[in-house]
């Protein structure tokens, strides 16, 4: 007896869990079937809703009425550099008032484009020069110059702000582990999972409908990667370098600023790149609260259903995004590769030829702009617009393929979306809390179980259960389909270098695009509704599934593959028996990322008429109802956190098993 018991010892836990899960599912099913007798377990009773939204509204109202001196002075202080940047790049400086005001011109577009070519050349050679310069020229020639420069001005003020704040927060977290664990880590998680819309509401309330509130929202949204990059960079500095600085007799300050941070520069630059891209993304969305610029153009055009104009402004965003991304990546890459020695020269001009040249070009072209109008503003004669073309194209598609598209759309709604939606919205809230808690317990333990259950419970007791489940349903379907598409592509990319070469630039570009841009082409074809939201979300969220799968398969050590081959595995067996199991944790990380990105996108899709938490935030935004918006935003964040924690726990477990 004892022998058999000990021999089969590893099995019982698994079987026990199977039993537990069967019992749990049965219990939930029972609740669902008997919902007439226990209605409170299915739909959260309306009279028990905790009015968190009202509390938040009251708090925000109090802040607004009592701390207005603070918010006003913040607006005034931040307004100074922001106005300067806006004037410099987009609006011209006006000194004095009225008709006799003296106008100092903004930087000439010719000069800015030339500097873009130059900057590309300086950090990445001719190819990058052509790409970056071309993007700027494109923006100018397609008549988007002023809007694009407005956007760029906001970014150029928000990004340094994010970098400095992120750097100091990161240093603090690195110095004080308790601060990281108790304050910064949870705050960062929340900052990155709260949907971008939800940021806008309190900003709107506190700082008004102005570029400053857009900038603050952008700064909050775009700072986390810098904090993380700083922490990561500092912990990754080789131990010996830290020891060296101690042995050289550095004070704590010298050690940090002269040794550790410079040594961490490559990682910091990756953070800077991410900050820039997130800031761009957010500036576009913040156009709703007065940021202006390209995002505002898209928004206006979308509202008026002018697809051509929306597409054009959208493409300008894409051009700007690609230019900024490639430029900052090239700089980061250059940092990582390290410096190359060169002769030291005493004169500034010789030491910084590119910078000097850039300043000279800007000065000369801007001065010329005083006399030659073609330098001051892009002449109408050389701009051209593709808006009619896009409109014609959409019209053509609509006329010729309307039936096919419509049939596809209806079939999708009737056969896939609606049943899933019905299932999700009918799911008992108590059952969901219970099952998710159980999953948390199995994967990690009591703490995760409590966290997951509490966060899920929050969505129910604030009276948002139905909308939460509407979000879960659309997000879940989109993420599922994104994985169905992305993982096979990733697998193919991992098995063929040629295919990878084709896929990589595409997913790089997809990843760079602000989420806004995904909606435009889909709206053209599918009009507003869940289908549009789903397709845009899939396009947005497919990238991590591809990237992580590819990376996961490729990082399997070659020695293991050789071992498999030597043991006589066929390629097929090698793939299914060795590569896939070993890559599974990485692939699951990709799935996790896909879910989080899908969630972020679904919320933005509120603009195209979904009926979920995103819509709740969107409505709150238009009514400036901070309590409602923030609570809905938190509910969205909690969905993301629950999914993230469960997946991470699962991945950690799988990793531990693989060693």
């Amino acid at each position, binding site marked *: 007896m004892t022998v058999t018991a000990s021999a089969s010892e590893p099995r019982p836990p698994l079987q026990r869990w199977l039993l537990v899960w069967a019992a749990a599912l049965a219990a939930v099913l029972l609740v669902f079937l008997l919902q007439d007798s226990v209605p409170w377990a299915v739909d959260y009773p309306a009279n028990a809703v905790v009015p968190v939204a009202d509390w938040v509204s009251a708090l925000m109202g109090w802040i607004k009425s009592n701390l207005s001196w603070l918010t006003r002075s913040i607006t005034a202080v931040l307004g100074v550099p922001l106005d300067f940047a806006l004037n410099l790049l987009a609006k011209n400086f006006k000194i004095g008032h009225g008709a006799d005001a003296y106008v100092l011109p903004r930087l000439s577009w010719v000069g800015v484009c030339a500097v873009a070519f130059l900057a590309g050349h300086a950090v990445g050679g001719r190819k990058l020069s052509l790409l970056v310069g071309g993007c700027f020229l494109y923006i100018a020639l397609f008549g988007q110059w002023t809007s694009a420069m407005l956007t760029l001005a906001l970014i150029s003020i928000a990004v340094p702000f994010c970098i400095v704040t992120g750097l100091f927060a990161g240093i603090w977290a690195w110095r004080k582990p308790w601060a990281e664990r108790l304050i910064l880590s949870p705050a960062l998680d929340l900052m990155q999972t709260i949907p971008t819309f939800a940021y806008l509401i309190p900003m709107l309330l506190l700082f008004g409908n102005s570029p400053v509130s857009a900038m603050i929202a952008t700064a909050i949204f775009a700072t986390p990667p810098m904090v993380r990059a700083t922490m990561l960079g500092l912990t990754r500095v*080789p131990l*010996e*370098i830290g*020891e*060296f600085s*101690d*042995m*050289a*007799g*550095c*004070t704590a300050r*010298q050690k940090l600023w*002269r*040794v550790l941070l*410079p*040594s961490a*520069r490559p990682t910091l630059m990756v953070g800077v790149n991410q900050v820039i891209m997130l800031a761009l993304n957010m500036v576009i969305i913040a156009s709703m609260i007065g940021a202006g610029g390209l995002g505002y153009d898209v928004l206006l055009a979308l509202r008026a259903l002018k697809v051509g104009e929306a597409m054009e402004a959208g493409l300008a965003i894409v051009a700007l995004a690609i230019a900024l991304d490639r430029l900052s990546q090239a700089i980061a890459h250059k940092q990582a*590769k*390290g*410096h*190359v*020695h*060169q*002769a*030291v020269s005493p004169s500034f001009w010789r030491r910084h030829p590119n910078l000097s040249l850039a300043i000279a070009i800007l000065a000369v072209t801007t001065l010329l702009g005083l006399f030659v109008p073609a330098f001051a503003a892009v002449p109408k004669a050389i701009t051209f617009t593709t808006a009619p073309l896009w409109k014609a194209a959409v019209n053509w598609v609509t006329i010729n393929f309307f039936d096919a598209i419509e049939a596809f759309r209806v079939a999708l709604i009737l056969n896939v979306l609606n049943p899933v939606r019905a299932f999700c919205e009918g799911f008992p809230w108590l059952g969901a809390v219970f099952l998710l808690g159980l999953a948390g317990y199995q994967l990690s333990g009591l703490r995760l179980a409590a966290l997951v259950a509490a966060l899920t419970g929050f969505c129910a007791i604030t009276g948002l259960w139905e909308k939460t489940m509407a979000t879960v349903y659309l997000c879940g379907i989109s993420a599922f389909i994104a994985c169905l598409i992305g993982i096979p592509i990733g697998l193919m990319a991992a098995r063929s270098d040629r295919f990878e070469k084709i896929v990589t630039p595409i997913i790089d570009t997809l990843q760079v695009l602000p989420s806004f841009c995904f909606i435009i082409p889909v709206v053209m074809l599918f009009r507003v509704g869940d289908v549009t939201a789903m397709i845009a979300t899939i396009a947005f969220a497919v990238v991590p599934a591809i990237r992580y799968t590819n990376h996961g398969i490729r990082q399997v050590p070659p020695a293991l593959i050789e071992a498999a081959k030597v043991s006589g595995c066929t390629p097929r067996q090698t793939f299914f028996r060795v590569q896939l199991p070993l890559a599974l944790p990485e692939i699951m990380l990709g799935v996790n990322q896909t879910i989080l990105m899908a969630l972020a996108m679904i919320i933005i899709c509120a603009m195209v008429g979904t009926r979920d938490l995103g819509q709740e935030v969107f409505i709150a935004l238009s009514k400036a109802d901070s309590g409602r918006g923030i609570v809905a935003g938190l509910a969205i964040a909690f969905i993301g956190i629950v999914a993230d924690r469960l997946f991470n726990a699962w991945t950690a477990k799988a990793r531990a098993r693989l060693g």
Partner: protein
Amino acid sequence: MFQKDDWMTTEQGSTQPGTNDRPVKLACRNVWKLFGVNAASFIRERDGKASMADVTAAGLVGAVRAVDLEIRQGEIFIIMGLSGSGKSTLVRCMSRLVEPSHGKIEFEGKDLLKISDAALIELRRHRMGMVFQNFALLPHLNVLDNIAFPLSIQGQDRATREARAREVIDLVGLRGREHFYPRELSGGQQQRVGIARSLATKPEIWFLDEPFSALDPLIRREMQDELMRLQTMLHKTIVFITHDFDEAIRLADRIAIMKDGEVIQIGTPEELVVNPATDYVAEFTRDVDRAKVISAYSLMRACDGSEHGGTVSPDAKIASFSASIVSAGKPFAVVNGTGKPIGEVTPQAVIDLLAGIEHARADA
């Protein structure tokens, strides 16, 4: 035989005259470093005494245990041990990069663990230097700035520190590479930069933490020669960490062998080879080229009146006269500083040693 043992005890087997009577530069007195919860109080409560079993039973890891040693002015003191033996932790305790759990580190008689942070910084800025296994060069600075860095944080002006940096650049033979960045240099060159940087401040005690372990064998040998060349010019007190016994034998005045956090034997290379304290030490010394380590003194016997073919000093290595004694075919007299013979070495003993059978003869 009797007379030889007598010599051993009175002179403590010193074949490197002059190191014993020098002042002690750095001493470890019952130094402990334990890792784990409440490690410091654990060892304090036991008054600095605990066995390996005690430590393990308390759930602690004993990285350095009860280490007592004295490093004398101007000697090359090598701490030898395999990975995980605690040698790196010990050298970090000596410089207080790692705070010992218990014990005293005495630098010129003063307890390093009691001095203030400011005093420690001063001490490290001017009197200690360290070279690291993986070079620890700053990637964003070129060779010149890397070497001048320790001077720059002391607040020296650019002209002064660069002049000094150029001096040490010449010293380690890197002239012409001043404006190269670490990535552009080979491993050997990078470690030359590391050495130059640690010498820029003219330290008195020089810690070298496995400085050549990351280098190819050929480069390693070249760097060892380079170190010996520098030492003949600079006469630093050197604490050198290595896991390579051959390297230890080549460079050391004295070697401390560590195992599981304890120092199990301290002695000259010859003492370790001739009188290994444990089987563990014997295992290391087994493949050593004895003729290069063992001196005439260790091999001599009392004179039996036969004719001598030459004279050697007691600390001459066998390898230095083996060819001449074998071709002479007669015993050589071992003479002390005043020219008085204290014994003789026979050609047969040298041949046996070269053939690796001296133990058999001793037993017989």
